[in-house]
Structure formats: C-alpha cells, structure tokens
C-alpha cells in the first residue's frame, strides 16, 4: 500500500519469473483457534514446531479463506490440556513422557495481532484489518518477499530505516508521510535514540534533495543539545565518533553554534554563531522557564505586564526596576501592580538566565535570525549546537523557544500569503527538539510554540521531531498528533502506554515494546509505515558511506544542477 492507498505496480522480479527463489521456507506454525480483532488471535502451535524458536515482534502470514492476513507475534503462552500435568509434571529423567506431552497435552499458543490483510484476488492492495481470519486458518512465518512487498518499495518516496528481526529485507519509511506530520523518537537513555535520529535526519536530507517538486522538499532545524548532529557525534562502537550531518552533506547542512569556544575546541566546522537578544525574549518564554528559574506566579504576571507596557524592551526595564519600597519606580510598580518582593524574585530569575551566557546580548544583532531564516528558506538544514550550554536546560529552552517562535511566525506569514496566491509556499520545516517533554508537558504545552506546532500539525508546513525518554510526560494531545513514532526500549509502564496510545492492538504491542533489546532495536508505528514493525536500525557507518555516495553522485540532469 502506498501513501495514497492507491495500488502500486509491483516491480518485475527476474528471479521470480525464472522460478528461482521459490519460497521454500513456508514454515507452518499452527492454526488459528480463537481470539478477536481487538484482543488479537490465538494460534495453537503445531506439535512439531519448537516454541523456543518463536519471538515476539516477528511477522506471520495467515492464509485464510479468501484473503491473506499479516500479523505480528505479540505473546507466546504455554498451556496444557491435562490439568494434572501442571501439578505432577514428568520427572527430570522421564524424557519419553516429556517428548510425548510436548506439543500435544502441553502445547504453546501464539498471540498474534492481525495488522493488514491482502485480498487473494488482488495481490497489491493491503489494508488495515477489519475482521479476523476464520477458524483453523493456517499460520506460517511471513516470507521475506511478503515483508518486502509491504515495507519494501525502493523508490524516491521511501527511505531505509533498518531490517526486521531475522530477515534480510529492508524496512522503508514513506518520506512524504513522514515529513507531513510531527513525529517522535522515544526510548530510555542509552537505547540508541540519537543514533536513530541521526539516521532519520540524514535520510530526510537525502530524500529531500532527490525531490523534484520543491513543495515536497523538507529542511531540518535541529536544536542539538549534546552536539551530536552537526559535525561529529559520539558513537558507542569502534572509533567512538561518527560523522555528523554537516560532515556528510556539507552543501545541505549549515551548523550554527551558541558556544563558539566549545565548537572550536571540538573541531566542529560551524558556519556562524547564534546570538539572542533580550529584546527577542518574550514574557511567555520566561513563563515557560518559571520552574527552572524558580519564579513566582507574580513574577510571571509582572513579565507580561512589563511587556505590555515596554514591548521588546521589557526585560531591560525589568532588570532596571528598583525594589526599594519608596524608590523612584514606586509609581511605575503601582501602575503595573508589581510588588517590591516580586521585583527581587523576578530580577534574580532573569539574572540567573543571562549570567555567563555570552550568546544572550542586550540587543540582538539583526543578522543572526535573518541568516537562520534565509538558510532555512533556501532549503538548507540548520543544526544549532549548544556547546557547553546544552547541559543548561534554561538556555536550551529559551533559545529553542525564541528562535522557533520567530521562525514559525515567518512560516505562517508565508504560508498564508501562498494560500492567498501571493507567493511561494515555504519549504517544509521539521524542527528537532530533545528533552521534548520539557516543552510539551501538560503544564506548559499550552504556552509554548512547540505545543502549538504539534497541535496545528502541518498547517503551516512546520512539524516537530520530538526526541524524548519520558513520553508519558508529554501532553497526551500532543502525543496523539504524532504521525510516526519510533521507539526504542521503554520499561516504564506509563511511558509505554503513552507511546502506544491510540494504536490498535495496543496490548500486544506493549509486550513487544517492553521486550526490545536494550540496543539496536526499535518499534516503528504510525503514519509512515503500513503496520507496526520491529527493526534493527541500519548500521550507521555503512549507511554514512552510502549517503555520502548518493549525495555526491554527479547530477544526472541539468535540472538537478539548477533546482528551482
């Protein structure tokens, strides 16, 4: 099935035509004996099939009467028909009895969540299941070509994300479907989120470059908290470092830094420095940082009052206020109903925010934001390195919020003009934020620009790629708007619930998700894949090489050299 639900011509397969690669390995597993669409199917394993060879997350094909179903093994259960066996099992030395009982009186049941069905009459159309296969339908392991047909289309529209467990095929995501909505990458710390993100970002850059239609191109804005994506990133493998986006695709990526000193020290090749002016900071930005800056609600109210009065110079004014009861600002304070104690609290907070932060200046040089905007609008992705300030959540949130708000404004303006027929649509922008729950938790999601972007979806061509380890702390409404969710191992129940919220077959996927390996395995579900799948992500180093080759391949057509 492709993105529009239309039938796709299946590519001609020479091997199949010649009768080679016949599916010898149509390994039977068992028969459907019960279950339901919502709770999943029960499949009794054939006596001769070894239960130990089963694995949750693996695909099965159910050959039913007139159609074929695809499902995923979500649980494996041992059962017995003879209750007495559970009380007096055969002894350790009674191998004969164990052999006899195994598979008959004591047998295994697979729990299979049906995901897709293909009509036997029309081989191409796969659609979500709306019913279950009939009783005793035969269940077998899905073959490589079946999985390939579902996930595999090799075309400019799809990019490889990894390989399924125990299979030698590629799982591909639908580029267009991926970029048109906000997406999430989740997983406990150390499970490979960064690795996956880098892979996804690179893929999108590569696919975007391959698009002929400018409306289909996409750029990234990455708020790179731990300096992982720009020039060079860490890698828990041989060598310890991998090339960042800029190093692989220098013509498509620009790196901006908040911390030139750190960037220089790390040998990162950055293009420019980012400076934020106090006059660019909004009262709402401060409200977002209320907790980390330890501000009272009164202080936040004061910010808003000050901004109303002094507009962009409000912060300057706030820092200049005197807390003296009968001081010169008495009248001003009274008119804004700011209590002297509030002034102290507010000033302490604001000073904490600006202290030792060379990238926050009183007035921003006009070119920082302009450069950022023009780079993005010209179709070049931007990675903003935070250097040492990445560990400082205040800075990260402030910068991300301030820049994103401005960018969003511009995008909205352009999009609205384009809708009115007065200009071109802005290129699709995907904003990557880490520790996303800080921006999107239920208390602040209503106030931050990120909450807004997540909710309004692709309306203004701006979407989010949220990276987080605590998805349960993200507002449920925002979670529900995420199109595609890529998730590595999660072991907190609430996090698992949050990621799977709204997915059909959730109970089964819960088990799959909790049993992912700690590294190098991810469950992908949602908009960009036809059905949930567990993959091993591509090996980054080989992938790196491949992308480099593709990006540097000489343009085949003149139009490639001179994109509109």
């Amino acid at each position, binding site marked *: 099935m492709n993105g529009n639900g239309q039938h796709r011509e299946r590519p001609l397969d020479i091997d199949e035509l010649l009768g080679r690669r016949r599916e010898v390995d149509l390994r039977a597993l068992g028969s459907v004996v019960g279950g339901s669409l919502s709770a999943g199917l029960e499949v009794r394993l054939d006596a001769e099939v070894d239960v130990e060879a089963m694995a949750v997350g693996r695909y099965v094909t159910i050959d039913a009467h007139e159609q074929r179903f695809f499902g995923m093994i979500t649980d494996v259960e041992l059962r017995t*028909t*003879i*209750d*007495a066996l559970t009380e007096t099992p055969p002894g350790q030395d009674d191998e*004969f*009895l164990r*052999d*006899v009982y195994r598979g*008959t009186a004591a047998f295994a049941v697979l729990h299979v969540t049906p995901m897709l069905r293909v009509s036997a009459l029309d081989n191409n159309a796969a659609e979500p299941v709306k019913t279950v296969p009939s009783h005793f339908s035969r269940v077998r392991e899905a073959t490589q070509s079946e999985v390939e047909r579902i996930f595999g289309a090799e075309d400019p529209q799809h990019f490889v994300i990894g390989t399924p467990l125990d299979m030698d095929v590629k799982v591909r995501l639908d580029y267009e479907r991926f970029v048109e909505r906000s997406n999430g990458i989740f997983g406990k710390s150390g499970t490979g989120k960064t690795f996956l993100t880098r892979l996804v970002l690179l893929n999108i850059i590569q696919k975007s470059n391959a698009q002929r239609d400018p409306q289909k191109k996409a750029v990234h804005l990455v708020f790179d908290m731990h300096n992982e994506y720009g020039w060079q990133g860490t890698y828990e493998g041989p060598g310890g470092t991998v090339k960042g986006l800029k190093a692989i695709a220098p013509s498509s990526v620009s790196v901006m830094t908040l911390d030139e000193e750190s960037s220089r020290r790390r040998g990162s090749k950055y293009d420019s420095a980012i400076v934020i002016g106090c006059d660019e900071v909004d009262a709402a930005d401060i409200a977002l940082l209320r907790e980390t800056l330890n501000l009272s609600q009164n202080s936040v109210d004061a910010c808003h009052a000050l901004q109303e009065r002094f507009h962009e110079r409000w912060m300057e004014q706030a820092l200049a206020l005197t807390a003296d009861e009968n001081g010169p600002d008495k009248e001003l304070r009274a008119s804004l109903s700011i209590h002297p104690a509030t002034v102290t609290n507010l000033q302490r907070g604001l000073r904490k925010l600006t202290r030792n932060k060379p990238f926050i200046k009183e007035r921003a040089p006009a070119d920082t934001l302009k450069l950022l905007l023009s780079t993005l609008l010209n179709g070049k992705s931007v990675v903003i390195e935070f250097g040492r300030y990445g560990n400082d959540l205040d800075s990260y949130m402030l910068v991300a919020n301030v820049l994103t708000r401005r960018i969003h404004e511009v995008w909205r303006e352009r999009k609205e003009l384009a809708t009115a027929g007065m200009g071109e649509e802005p290129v699709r922008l995907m904003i990557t934020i880490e520790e996303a729950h800080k921006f999107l938790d239920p208390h602040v999601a209503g106030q931050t620009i990120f909450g807004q972007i997540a909710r309004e979806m692709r309306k203004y061509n701006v979407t989010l790629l949220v990276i987080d380890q605590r998805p349960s702390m993200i507002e449920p409404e925002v979670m529900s708007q995420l199109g595609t969710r890529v998730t590595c191992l999660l072991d907190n129940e609430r996090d698992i619930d949050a990621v799977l919220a709204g997915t059909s077959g959730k109970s089964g996927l819960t088990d799959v998700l909790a049993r992912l390996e700690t590294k190098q395995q991810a469950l992908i579900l949602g908009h960009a894949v036809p059905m949930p799948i567990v993959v091993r992500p591509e090996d980054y180093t080989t992938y790196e090489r491949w992308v480099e080759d593709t990006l540097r391949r000489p343009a085949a057509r003149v139009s490639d050299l001179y994109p509109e």
Partner: protein
Amino acid sequence: MARPPAITRYGRVIEAAIARFTAECFKDVETPPLGELIAVEDGPETIVAVVSSIVTQGIDPSRRVNAHGGPEDDLPTVLAAHPHVPALLLTTFSGSVVGYLAPDGVRQYLPPAPPPIQARVRACSDEEVREFTGSFDFLRLLLETGPLADEVLAAALRRAAEAYGAAGRAFLVRAGKALSPLLARDPVRLQATLRRMQA
C-alpha cells in the same frame, strides 16, 4: 528383532465376532506374543487384529489336567516322565480387531463382517506393520477391548516399534502424542500406559 522373511502362520479361526476372534494354534508352531499385529488370510478382506489374550488348557474341557511330579522336580524332568502331557494341551489366542487392509489402503475401523471360521491367521510383515501404524485411529478400538486394554495397547505399540528399527522411539513418541488426547480425562491411566509403552 528381525522377523524371518517367510510368513509365520499361527493358527486357524475357531470363533469369530465382529470385534474379536479366537484362533487355535497349529501344533508345533510357536504361539504369537501378546500385542503382535496379526492378519486373517482367506477372507474377503485381510482383517488386522492385535493379540489380546492367550489361553492354554486341556483338550477335553471335561477333564482337568493333573499336576505331575514333586516339589523338587523341574519342568523338563516332569515332561520327560510324562511325555504325553503336551499332546493333551491346546493353545488358543484371541485377536482384537483393529481394522483391515482394503485393496486401496488401510482401514482403521471394524470390517463389514467377522473373519471366516477356519481362516488362517498369520503375523503381519514389518512392512505391513509400518503401513498399518502410519496413523493411530486404531488406538481407540484397542482401548475398548476390556480390563487389560492398556496392557494390550502398550504391548502392541512396543511390538510395532520393533518394525521401525532405529526409528522405534520416534514412533513411540508419535503414538504417545496420539494417545494423550484419548486418555486426557484420566491422566493417571495415561501416564501408566505411556510408561509401559517404553520398550
């Protein structure tokens, strides 16, 4: 245990019912062992049965066989002193019918008619044993044969396993798997039978 290639004939049918027949052993021919798979020749179908009981008694039912010799005399001594004794004895065996061999294959249910009286009873060849035990529907018939059904069934499967040579154990496991649903309601009986099946 390899059987001789020649056909072993054990006796003739002297009493026949649809599910069970009795045959009298030929003189000077060995008695079939318990559980042996036997076939009735000379009928419209080759009826297949399992030896389920063996009886030796005096020829004349009105005369009891007397005990000879004293407490110290062993069997050869007694037979040497009374050589006529074997001649006064008669051995019969019963076969529980488990199916028949139709021209186009094995049937594991009762034949349309009992075997004819005087028909000859022979041992099944290894090949026939393997062919007949290719499926296990006959186990249910064997379980219905009376108080010693489990013994007979276990003996039959042990004997049949011999026809499989090295694959005998695998055969017994298959048989056990087929048996377990039949006796699922009586796990003690199942377990006891399974234990007896092991050669």
